[in-house]
């Protein structure tokens, strides 16, 4: 029993450790004072200023453009990749799997610098397009991994049943596979979307002038003198994250 208590204490302490900084940040976004330490009254003025921040809206737009396009492309590529990996066990799939898997075991910064060097070598102008390519590349891995685990738990006898009943492969895909795998595909797409929205390191390397995404905007605010506007922005992002996590959890629940 003592072991149980010890583990519970550690778990509680770690949760406090995880939440304390975030909570303090949200509280200070309502603080009238410019500096974090002292409380000088409740205010919503930082939220109002944030709302009127033009650059922030531009960054949000850029982030959404990249996230939506990278999610669409990586979901299609990742789903086909997962089908290929699940169904075939040829030597080609072994190489295919290592290509999919290796980005997971490589630090972000390496992917960032390697893509930057690649674009420099090609003389490609850095823009939102290069950011889109980078994001699709790392999202592809995650989407494939999610889809692969869904396919491993998928009961393929329904496909055989449909074939026995005379459905051709297009009908099987359209009427049987797609509807049944839709929650999995959606979960993969949501994962890709959140990863793309949140990525800073890789983006920082491949984003040129005028391709400021939301994380790059947040970073420059942290790095070069920040007003409490960033607290307000953080609070908003945290709440959106919380809602997204709840949706994802209910989608993936079996």
């Amino acid at each position, binding site marked *: 029993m003592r072991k149980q208590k010890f583990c519970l204490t550690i778990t509680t302490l770690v949760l406090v450790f995880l939440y304390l900084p975030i909570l303090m940040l949200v509280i200070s976004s309502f603080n009238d004072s410019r500096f974090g330490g002292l409380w000088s009254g409740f205010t919503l003025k930082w939220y109002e200023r944030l709302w009127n921040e033009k650059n922030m809206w531009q960054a949000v737009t850029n982030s959404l453009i990249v996230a939506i396009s990278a999610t669409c492309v990586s979901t299609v590529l990742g789903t086909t990749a997962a089908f*290929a990996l699940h169904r075939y066990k040829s030597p080609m799939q072994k190489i295919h799997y290592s290509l999919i898997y290796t980005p997971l075991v490589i630090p972000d910064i390496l992917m960032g610098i390697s893509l930057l060097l690649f674009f420099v070598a090609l003389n490609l102008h850095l823009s939102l397009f290069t950011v889109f390519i980078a994001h699709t590349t790392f999202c592809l891995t995650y989407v494939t991994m999610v889809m692969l685990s869904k396919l491993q738990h998928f009961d393929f006898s329904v496909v055989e049943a449909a074939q026995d009943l005379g459905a051709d492969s297009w009908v099987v895909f359209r009427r049987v596979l797609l509807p049944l795998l839709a929650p999995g595909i959606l979960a993969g797409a949501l994962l890709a979307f959140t990863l793309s929205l949140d990525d800073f390191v890789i983006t920082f390397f491949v984003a040129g002038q005028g391709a400021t995404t939301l994380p790059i905007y947040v970073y420059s605010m942290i790095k070069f003198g920040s007003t409490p506007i960033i607290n307000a922005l953080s609070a908003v992002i945290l709440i959106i994250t919380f809602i997204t996590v709840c949706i994802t959890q209910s989608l993936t629940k079996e």
Partner: protein
Amino acid sequence: MSIRKTFLDEFLLTIPSFTWLFVFFLIPTLIIFGYAFKPYDIYGGITEGWTLDTIKSLANPNYFLMIWRTLWLSSLTTLISVALALPIGYQLACTSKKLRQILLLLIVVPFWSSFLIRIFAWKTLLHPEGAFKQFLVWAHIVNADTSLLYNSGAVLLVMVYTYLPFAVFPIYAAASKFNFQLLEAAMDLGATRSRAFFHVLVPGIKKGIFTAVVMVFIPAIGAYVIPDLVGGSNSEMIGNKIAQRTFVERNLPQASALSALLALSVLIPMAGLSYLTSRSKQLESVARNKE
């Protein structure tokens, strides 16, 4: 006919993702190694020909110090994260379903929330005017003029904070498959609680622990944003140097050489480990066949 059709199907399903990763992942990674041997001009360009100067410049003692710091900071982060994740994983695996779901959600949320914002949250807490600093000064734990920010301690703290969830999930996943009656059996047979923990539970979930180590160590060794935002000039890591060479000095061959070093220090142990595990699997199956 049918074999040809299956091959065509496989080919069509494989080619999109394969081509994408070949062009945008494999080739760029190989370029890192190539650029390390290229001379550069002072305008930030890359010139014709090949040189070994960049590789030789890695022998600089300053680099050695920085690499040593990167290694011990990332190892210590991994050690602390796994040590904290073990009791949490155990707790998660043992509690009632309802409490487990709540706890898991509570751990997942910070994990999903923006990486930069979590670092910023610590930066404000540790800031000289921040709440945490004020509290510590008030409690006479630290002196008013000790800086909590811009040192290796701050980097370590924020790295553990950021990467801890990466250690919790694999350990929990392994612990939830573990048969806890084995622990009771060990203790019935006279093992002390800690002996049962280290000799029965830990070997039982070693795969989860191994995944946790990899999941924390890899992002930690390549950390760039954390030492950049909460570290100082005496807590720079290899990631900072790569970014500095890229953005400030525009010396891409130097950045490549450092990146190549980082890539090798991650990929060689990974390849070795996967060789060892496949090898031990083979030996296991050989042994089983003999029985």
